[in-house]
């Protein structure tokens, strides 16, 4: 276990190094599809796909709130917490910045249904207060970041625990694969909107996934690692 941890740390340091080296300027937000980027048809399509999750999430929160009124303030503050984490700009040694997205953390803590609502609100504020992402593209961004990411993270976490993986490994995989899932869905969304002339969707997907992978894969690893450390600290409390 001790050895594994050292290895994980080594890999993480390597990952972080390459991530900072490749990408010295804003990258976590690179996965926010900006305003006007998606053709109107696709924008509507992704909204339509996301809305049921939000409505379902709101319904389940409403049900719980009537039993525990304090849940509402807890979720409201959690939204702010997730936003602040995503805006966390801490200059690291190279002078670049990192932005932990906290999708995995949120999903493991609050469950994926509540996260789809909170995540959408966080994305709304990211476009309103930070100009990251957009309003017409909010549906698409919410689908990848507030729906798919948390569901994957939560599913992997539960699966990992069932398969008797250690807590740390489950959390790491959950957070990392949640991030990767988000990145793949975004690539899918982009390539559906902009299929290649030759090879169509698939060729385009390879291009988008390839080019964003350079920044997103190291980021997913570092986020996975960070989430493990955070969860370990949280358990101590």
């Amino acid at each position, binding site marked *: 276990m001790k050895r594994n941890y050292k290895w994980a740390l080594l890999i993480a340091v390597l990952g972080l190094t390459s991530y900072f080296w490749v990408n010295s*300027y804003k990258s976590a*937000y690179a996965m926010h599809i900006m305003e006007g980027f998606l053709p109107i048809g696709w924008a509507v399509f992704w909204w339509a796909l996301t809305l049921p999750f939000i409505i379902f999430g709101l319904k389940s929160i409403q049900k719980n709130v009537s039993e525990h009124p304090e849940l509402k303030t807890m979720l409201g503050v959690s939204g702010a917490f997730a936003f602040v984490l995503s805006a966390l700009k801490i200059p*690291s040694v190279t002078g670049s910045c990192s932005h*932990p997205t906290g999708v995995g953390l949120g999903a493991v803590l609050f469950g994926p249904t509540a996260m789809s*609502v909170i995540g959408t609100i966080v994305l709304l504020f990211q476009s309103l*207060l930070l100009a990251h992402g957009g309003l017409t593209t909010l549906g698409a961004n919410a689908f990848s970041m507030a729906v798919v990411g948390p569901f994957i993270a939560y599913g992997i976490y539960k699966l990992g625990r069932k398969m008797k993986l250690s807590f740390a490994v489950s959390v790491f995989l959950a957070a990392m694969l949640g991030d990767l899932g988000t990145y793949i869905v975004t690539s899918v969304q982009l390539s559906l909107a*902009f299929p290649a002339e030759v090879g169509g969707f698939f060729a385009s997907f390879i*291009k988008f996934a390839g080019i964003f992978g350079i920044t997103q894969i190291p980021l997913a690893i570092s986020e996975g690692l960070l989430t493990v*450390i955070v969860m370990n600290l949280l358990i101590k409390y």
Partner: protein
Amino acid sequence: MLKIDQYAYINDLKHIHPAEKVAFAFVFLLFTIITKNNSIGCLTFIIMSISVVFAAKIPLSQYIKLLLLPSLFLLTSMMTIVISVTPISSMVNPLWQIEIGSWFIYTSLANLKQALDLGTTVMASISCLYFLILTTSINQILWVLKQLKLPILFIELVGMTYRFIFVLLDKMHEIFLAQSSRLGYQNYKDWITSVAQLIVSLFIKSSQSAKELQTAIESRGGEEGLYDIEIGMAINRSRCAGILVVVVGLLTISILTR
């Protein structure tokens, strides 16, 4: 603390009714996205930029900084669209190409046009978004969301999130200073443990804040109507007429330049 939020409260259009601002921004935004017409795109960008800089009096340098913000994503995506790879056997009509083994790396005219159209649409669209967020405070946006009859629970969560963003940002800054002054964040290993400690510490404080907020709300006798917003202003008829004229104008342009 957050620049955009500050401008939203102090800009020169802060007293214009939010419904008008939202309508103005969305009319242009929707026309831009739906028509994907370059002349509409350029017109939108010019009108929005003028409104932001001259009407709302947002400093030009700030506006340019904001415009550059999504450039990384935009340029990466445009490059991805422009450059294609295909087996040499395929039939393409490239503008430019190189051969590597049995593959073509090439750029076609259609790809180039698609990328440029995309660039125009995106710049026009984000100028609409910037007009909206730089002139309309969250308070006014909450009012709009309420008029759109979104679920109360959703609006309440949005409102609380907004308020506590600033409380927690303050706390995060305090923790960050305390850590730095005791030599946190000095190298990679310190960096990641320091960030983790900061997140956990902030999480504990968040849950405390939530409890305090709950007590404060209850002590003032209510759980309902947390964010009933009063907009102390009326809709201006001539400006509404102006927006109608814009709609007709944009419609005409999109038909003429089809």
